[in-house]
Every structure is written in structure tokens, then in C-alpha cells.
């Protein structure tokens, strides 16, 4: 709050003209601050502050005021908190939410307040903007299936791995993220020998490991968190030596920072996701530096987290669109909605545009796990695919015909694979 007052005071001195405008725009930050993603949610709030501080809490000539509403990643709490933001705090714009099922809840809630705006934080369920999308729900981050895109072609063309078996978590994100990989992989001529699905939170995979076929080039693993670690641990104990391919959360920082030898099985494993820590692009590097300078080292992550980046991009989108309409939110925010839809947003992750469902098209980063030399592991960027669309480069009809992500979707043969 002190920082906020300081920033506005400083701004009042610098820009007397803007300070005269009485009007303020209220923004609600809807973010998970309890439960599994609490640390990531807090990074989301930091990144909203970072973006707003850079413009002195001013956009479109109006002062920006923020209210934080904490959720616990359950859809029920999210809807309740969103209602509180709109009805009690009278916010104009909501930035958030953070997790998949919250996103679907907010899509439905946003339809009941058509003259307000929801800009997604970092929730990544495909359905949020694909099935009955809401006209005032905007998402500037990629969804779970887009995150998997590009990896398939990479392993076929660069690694020469054409026949794989897959083990993925048996829930919505597991299907969605796998779909992104599989579409690309099959189009590149790959063959999926066997698909295995494991319940979320399984801890003993010995039986599943025995089921993996021997005659494959690599094994795709679409798990996350402790599931990944347990799998890798038991895979090593069973003497497994195959090449591995990782889904987006298979080799993320929670897995790479675990204590023990299990993660070593991941060295050389390609994965794909929404950002790469060592992305050399100047817009990413300068953003990381701003982030590191803005907060003391013990109050932030070494580099912005996935959640932080998502909320940052959402805030950038809001600021750009507000500037475009000069802060005009009248007439049910119609002009603001139109400006958001047409944005060609420069973000630390590259250029992001929205499609007709108000879903982002943008860049996916391909990384490989490598040993830093001191025993710690890191993801090294090895490639980047720009302009990945919601339909993964297909027409909307073709994508729809493929079906929603499930255990058996996509059909590899239908896409040109084997």
C-alpha cells in the first residue's frame, strides 16, 4: 500500500494533467493464495504490481486501483470471490483466475456480468475459450494443448524418435497437454505404440513401468509434481534406459528442484511449455531483470514463475487496451472489449494476438533438461514455435471433428501418423 501511495504521489508530481482526472478504474486481482498454488499466486500479484508500477498505476489517462481477492483454487470460492469483487468492491475489470477449473467457472460467471471484463490470469483449460466461450472473457495465455504443440515435430525431426509409448495422468490437463503433443507428433509421421493412463496421485508405478513396450524410440511422460518423481524413481530402479519426452509439467521447477537422484533420469529430455527461463530474446531478458530489480531476492522466485508471467501478460493487455480507448469504459465497456480483441500485444514471450474466441495465439518454447555441471538441473531452450493457434494450425472444423481431449483423442492415424 505504501508503495502504491508513493507511486501515485510521484506520478501526481510528474503528470499534473493526468492527476487532475478524477476518474479511477478499479481492477480486481482474482488469484489463488491458498492451497497448492499459493506461492505461484503470490507471484501473480507481484507481477501485476510490476506491470502497473511501470506505468505509474495509470492507463488511458485514468488512475488504476487494485483489490486482491484470494481463492483456494476451487471453482466455488472463485465464483464467490468474483461476485464479491463485482458487487461489493465495484471493480470494472477482473484479472484472473489461476487454475483450470476456476477458469471454466469464471467463463460461466462472466456471462452474467456482460458489461464487465475478465482477463484470464493463467488458467489453461482448453474448454474455457473453446466450448461456449464468453464474449467478455479474454485469455492472453496459451492453453494446455497449445503448450504441448511443437514438441512432437521436434522429437520426430531433430531427435529421430518416430515410435513412442505414452504414460499420462488420467485427468483433464493430462489429456489436453497430451493432445497438443500428439497432434503435432502424428502429423510429423510419428507412431504411438501404446497409450497408458495413470490416476492422478498414484505413487507406485511399478506395474505400469512393466507394461511399457521395449521396441519404442522414446517414452512420453505426461505427469507432474510428486507423480513425476515417483515414476522416475521407480523407472530407474527397474533399470529403464529409454529416451524420455516430457509433458509441460513433467520437468518443471518443482520436479527439477526435488532432492534425490530420481530427476537425473530426465537429463536430455525434451519438453515444451509457455516460456523458457534462458530465452535470449531481449524482451524476455529485460522483463526478468525488471522483476529481479523490483523485489528483494527472498521475496520472489529466481526468475518469474509461470503464474507470474501469466498475470503479467494479462496486466499488460489491460493497460494497452485501456490506453487505446483512452480509459473509456462507458456503454458496457464495448470499446474496451473491441480493443482487447484486436490487440497485437508485445509481451515478454513475444507477440500475442487473440482469435475469434478471444483466445491467444502465441509462442511455445521447447527446452531440454541439462545438467548445470554442479549436479543441479535446468531447462535449456532448444527451439521456439511462434504463432501457435488454439486449433493447433488446423481449421476450426477439423479441430472440432477431432473431438475434445480424452484418452483416445486424437486418433493418430487420422492425422497422418501410424
Amino acid at each position: 500500500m505504501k508503495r502504491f501511495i508513493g507511486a501515485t504521489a510521484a506520478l501526481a508530481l510528474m503528470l499534473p494533467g493526468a492527476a487532475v482526472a478524477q476518474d479511477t478504474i478499479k481492477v480486481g486481482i482474482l488469484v489463488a493464495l491458498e492451497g497448492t498454488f499459493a506461492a505461484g499466486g503470490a507471484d501473480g500479484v507481484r507481477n501485476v504490481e510490476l506491470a502497473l508500477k511501470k506505468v505509474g498505476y495509470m492507463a488511458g489517462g485514468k488512475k488504476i486501483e487494485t483489490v486482491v481477492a484470494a481463492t483456494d483454487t476451487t471453482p466455488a470460492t472463485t465464483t464467490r470471490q468474483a461476485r464479491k469483487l463485482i458487487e461489493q468492491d465495484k471493480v470494472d475489470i477482473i484479472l484472473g483466475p489461476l487454475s483450470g477449473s476456476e477458469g471454466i467457472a469464471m467463463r460461466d460467471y462472466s456471462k452474467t456480468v456482460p458489461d464487465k471484463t475478465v482477463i484470464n490470469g493463467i488458467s489453461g483449460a482448453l474448454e474455457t475459450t473453446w466450448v461456449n466461450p464468453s464474449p467478455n472473457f479474454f485469455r492472453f495465455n496459451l492453453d494446455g494443448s497449445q503448450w504441448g504443440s511443437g514438441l512432437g515435430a521436434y522429437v520426430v525431426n531433430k531427435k529421430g524418435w518416430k515410435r513412442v509409448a505414452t504414460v499420462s495422468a488420467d485427468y483433464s490437463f493430462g489429456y489436453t497437454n497430451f493432445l497438443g503433443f500428439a497432434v503435432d507428433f502424428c502429423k510429423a509421421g510419428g507412431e504411438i505404440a501404446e497409450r497408458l493412463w495413470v490416476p492422478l496421485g498414484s505413487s507406485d508405478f511399478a506395474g505400469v513401468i512393466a507394461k511399457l513396450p521395449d521396441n519404442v524410440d522414446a517414452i512420453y511422460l505426461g505427469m507432474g509434481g510428486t507423480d513425476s518423481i515417483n515414476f522416475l524413481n521407480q523407472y530407474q530402479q527397474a533399470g529403464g534406459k529409454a529416451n524420455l519426452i516430457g509433458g509441460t509439467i513433467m520437468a518443471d521447477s518443482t520436479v527439477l528442484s526435488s532432492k534425490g537422484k530420481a530427476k537425473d533420469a530426465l537429463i536430455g529430455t525434451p519438453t515444451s511449455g509457455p516460456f523458457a527461463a534462458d530465452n535470449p530474446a531481449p524482451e524476455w531478458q529485460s522483463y526478468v531483470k525488471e522483476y529481479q530489480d523490483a523485489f528483494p531476492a527472498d521475496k520472489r522466485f529466481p526468475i518469474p514463475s509461470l503464474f507470474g508471467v501469466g498475470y503479467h501478460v494479462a496486466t499488460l493487455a489491460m493497460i494497452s487496451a485501456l490506453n487505446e480507448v483512452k480509459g473509456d469504459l462507458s456503454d458496457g465497456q464495448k470499446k474496451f472489449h473491441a480493443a482487447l480483441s484486436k490487440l497485437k500485444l508485445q509481451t515478454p514471450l513475444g507477440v500475442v494476438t487473440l482469435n475469434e474466441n478471444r483466445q491467444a495465439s502465441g509462442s511455445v518454447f521447447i527446452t531440454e533438461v541439462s545438467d548445470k555441471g554442479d549436479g543441479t538441473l535446468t531447462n535449456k531452450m532448444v527451439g521456439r514455435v511462434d504463432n501457435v493457434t488454439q486449433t493447433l494450425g488446423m481449421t476450426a472444423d477439423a479441430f472440432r471433428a477431432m473431438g475434445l481431449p480424452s484418452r483416445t483423442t486424437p486418433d493418430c492415424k487420422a492425422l497422418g501418423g501410424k
Partner: protein
Amino acid sequence: MGTLQNLSTRHPIWTLIVVVLVVGFAWLILAPWPPGLEQAMGRKRVFLNAILSGITLGALYFLVASGFTLVFGLMRNVNLAHGSLYLLGGYIGYGVVEVTGYWLLAFPVVFIVVGALGLLLQHQVFRRMEGEELRQTLVTIGISIVLADLMLWYWGGQSYQVLSPSWLSGPMTLPLISSLRSNGEAVYLSYPQVRIAILAAAIVIGFAMWFVLNRSRLGMLIRAGVDDRDILAASGVKIQYVFLAVFAFGAGMAGMAGIIGGTFQSLSPGEDTRFLLASLVVVIVGGMGSIPGAALGAVIIGLAEQIGLVYAPTYSVVFTFLIMAVVLAFRPQGLLGAQR
């Protein structure tokens, strides 16, 4: 043997069915499978692995649940902080292995440290509320929450794996035929060494516990205490010492199980409640207070989880609780529990 003969003459049909099932199962495990069977049930390797993994997972569950069931049997005390003792033991074991490099050394250290914590809990907390079951239950829940937060504070949210020694890492070849090559040569099953070692250790510990309970003076006291606590106390035995010994032993066992769990799975916040739940299911199925019951329950639950995961992943989560519900419906005292 006499009772067995009795049983077979009284129930000839059931005996026949059981014998056929056992022989059939032994054939499934020992003989190479004909192609028709492989088509129906998948490769034999998968089946063998599911069975062995189920039994080794059962061994882990047994180690956790045996202390739990013993404490309950003797003191009627449902210790809901048992899972926290498991997790704490695992973390301490990780520390010992990291510092000294000796995996085996972690076991005595953890047994003593976590056992001492058990002593402290029994002496300072549970002794003061003997016989007040609701109060004890609530207090153990409270302790488990406090311990979980303390562990989160000290060890953080990331997961840990205890490093297994090099002589246990990697697979070994078991004398079980997994398939036949086209030239008729047998391919033997390879299986993680560490899991075989854990199974062997669980069997040894199980027999040692059975021996102590049935052949030693302490065991006699414990059995007498399980049957009738008040009469035992009235006959001049210092029952508080027996309680202390049993509670410390149960806690130490949970701690050692934590090292084993950390070696072939992983340790992270939340594992405490997962193993508490597993122990509860195991002792409900096997019978509260019975060591052979805990062994039987643990193997049944381990097998159900692994076979479910391999052959019916969608429903694997349900099987465990289905078994528990069936047992509660038809034999509420548990499979080997005594009727009271």
C-alpha cells in the same frame, strides 16, 4: 494340521476350490504362458510385475500398519499422528543417508529417534487421557497437524527421495520365466532389487514380531494386555511400561517404514495422511490389533492397488475402498480380527 484336516473334511467343496485356485495361480506364475493366454491377459511380464509390485507395496503397508495395529490392540488408542511419524522418519532417514552415505545406518538412527518421540508422546500426552477415546483422537489429529506444519517449515514443500545404496539399485534377475524366445530359450524376469530387499526385510520383521509376541515374556504381557488390560494391571504388572514399550516400538516401525517409502516412492507434504489412510484401511481389512491381520490386509490392499493400476486404471482408486466396504459389511471385526 489337525484343524486343517478337520476343515477339509467339513468343507470338501470349498477346499477343492481353494486348492484349484492355488494350483492355478502357481501355474500362472511359474509356467511360460501359451500364446492364447497372452492374447487374453497381456504379456506374462506385466502380470508378474503387477503381482510382485502388489506384494512389495503390501510389505511397505505392513511395516507402517503393524505398529498402528499393535498400539490400537493394546491401548485402544487410534493414533492419527501415525502418518506424521512415518513422514518424519523418512525425512530423518534422508538426512542420515545424505550425511553419512550409509543407507542401512539410517534404520537404527530413525528407529531410536522416532521411537523416542513415541515414548515422549505416550508418556507426556496419552497417559494423561487414558480411556478417553474421543479426546485422544482429537489430540492425535492436532499433533499430526502441528507435526505436518513443522516438517513443512523445516524441509519445505519439495519432494525428497532417499538414495538407495548402489548394491540395491537397478534390477536383478528372478528365477521366474517371463517369456520364451522363438528358439525356446527362456527369458527370466528382471525386477528392481530394492523392492525384493524390502520384501525380504518385511518378512523377517514380521516373523520377528510374531516370535516376540508369541515366545517372549514381553510378548506374553502384550497379548495379555490386548485380551484384558484391567486384569493384567490387577495382577501386578506395571502396564504403563508395557504401553511405553509398545508405543515406542510402533512409532519406530513407522519411522523405518518412512525410509523405505522414501526409497522406492518419495517423501513430500501430504504423504503423512496418505499413509495414515493406508494404515487405517489395512487394519480395518485385516482386523484391528492383529499382526497377521495387518500382514494379510496389507498384501490384499497392495495387490488391489497394483493389479487395479495395471488392468483397470480407471477404477483402481475404487478397489481399495470397495474391499474395505465388503469387509465391513460381512466381517466387521476384520478378516483375522477377534470377535469381542
